[in-house]
C-alpha cells in the first residue's frame, strides 16, 4: 500500500504493508538511524519519535497510523532552536554515557519543553519516565533538562 506522510518537514511516500513498524521504515527505508531499538515492546523509549507532535514509541506504531501525519525524529529535531539547546545542555551537563537512550531522552525533553518550558523537577522525571537509561542513574539527565529550561528565553 502507498503510504504518504510528512517526515521531518518533507513530504515522503513509501510502498509498504500498513502494519510494518514505523521504526523499521524510519531506520531502513529512510536511513534515520538516530531512532534506536532497545526492547521492541514499548518499555524503554529508545525508539521515541513525535507523531503529530505527540510522543510515541515507534516500535509500537503501525506505519498506517502515520498516513497523512507528521513524524519528527531526532534528525529533524536536533537542528531546531529548542532541540539544539537541549542537546547542548546534555553535552555540557554530562548527561551522556553510552548514548543509546539519548535520542529518545532528547525527544521526550523536547516534547515536554515545547508545551511546558519551565517544568518542575518532578514534571521532568515524569516526562522521561518512559525512557530507560542503563548508564547514568538519570540525575544528570534531569539536571540537564532543567538547565535547558533555564536557557530558554
Amino acid at each position, binding site marked *: *500500500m502507498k503510504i504518504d506522510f510528512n517526515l521531518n518537514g518533507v513530504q515522503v511516500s513509501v510502498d509498504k*504493508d*500498513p*502494519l*510494518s*513498524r514505523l521504526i*523499521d521504515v524510519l*531506520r*531502513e527505508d529512510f536511513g534515520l538511524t538516530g531512532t534506536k*531499538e532497545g526492547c*521492541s*515492546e*514499548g*518499555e524503554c*523509549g529508545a525508539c*521515541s519519535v513525535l*507523531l503529530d507532535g*505527540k*510522543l*510515541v*514509541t515507534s*516500535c*509500537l*506504531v*503501525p506505519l*498506517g*497510523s502515520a*498516513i*497523512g501525519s507528521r513524524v519528527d525524529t531526532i534528525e529533524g529535531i536536533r537542528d531546531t532552536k529548542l532541540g539544539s539547546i537541549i542537546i547542548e545542555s546534555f553535552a555540557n551537563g554530562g548527561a551522556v554515557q553510552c548514548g543509546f537512550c539519548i535520542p529518545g531522552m532528547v525527544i*521526550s525533553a523536547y*516534547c515536554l519543553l515545547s508545551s511546558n518550558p519551565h517544568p518542575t523537577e518532578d514534571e521532568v522525571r*515524569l*516526562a522521561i*519516565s*518512559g*525512557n530507560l537509561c542503563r548508564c547514568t542513574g538519570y540525575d544528570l539527565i534531569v539536571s540537564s533538562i532543567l538547565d535547558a529550561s533555564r536557557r530558554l528565553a
Partner: protein
Amino acid sequence: MNYVAFSLKQALEIRKATKARVMAGGTDLMVSAQRGEGMMPRFEGDMLLISHVDELRHIGFNASGELEIGALCTSAQIAGDSRVPWALRAAASRMGAVALRNCATIGGNIANASPKGDLPGPLYALDARVRLLSVDGAEEMLVSDFILGLKKTKLKDDQIIGAIIIPKMDEWFDYIFWHKIGTRRANAISKLTVTMAIKLDQQRKIVEDFRLSATACGAKTNRSREVESLVIGKKVQELEDLVAPVQEAFDKVISPRAMPVFRRTATKNMIADFFSRVARLPEERNME
C-alpha cells in the same frame, strides 16, 4: 491482507467482508506480533487498522445526559478531560508512561480483556456500557457482561467497539476511591487496583449506593452486587464495623492466583481506609 479504514462505514464494511482483526493503537497487538529489528510483525490472519476513523474519537454527553467516550479515545485524552469521572481519569493517567498513554485506546483496553487492564475496574463500578457496531446495527451491554474472562469477550467477528457509555453520574457519588498498586510509577502493570464509590442520602447519614471492584485478582475484573448490598442502606456511622464482613464476602468473589495473601490483605486495607475516611464525612471527595 491488511487494511486501513478511513471512515466508520468503511471499517464496518471491511470487518464484515473479511473478518479482519481490529487494530486501534496497536500497543497490545504490535507487542505480541513483533519479531524484532527490521522484521514485519507476524499476525494471525488479516488485520484492519482503524486508527484513522475519526468518528470514534469523541468524548461528549448524549441526549440522555450520559457521557459517551469514543473507542479510539486514548488514555491521555481521557485523563485530560474533566467531564470524565475521576476514577476513570485517575486510572487512565497511570497507564504506562507518556508515549503509551498517547496510543493506548479505551476500546483496546476493554477488548484486550486482560485481568490487569486498568480501565475495566472503574468502568465496572460506574455501570458503564459498551456499544458494539456492525453493518447490521448496534447493540449495547454492560462492560462487565462484555468481558467474559482472560482475553475473552462477546465481540462478534463483524463488530467493532464504537463507544463506552457512562450513565449520568454528576450527583451520583459523594466519595470515590481508586488506588493502584504497581511496581513503579511509570509502565506499572497493576498488581492490584481497587475502585470504590459511595453515595449518601441528603442528610448524609445513610449509604444509598455502594460500588466495589478489584482488578488483577483473577481471570477478570471482579465486582459483586451481593457484596455491595451489605453496605447499601447502612448508616455512615456503621461503616467501620462493615469492613470485616465486606472483606470476607469479597474474598469469596476474588480468586487471586498469584500472591493471594498480599492481594487479600491489601484489598482489606483499602476497604478499611476508604470506610474510615468516609465515616468522618470529609470535604475531599476523591481518595487515592
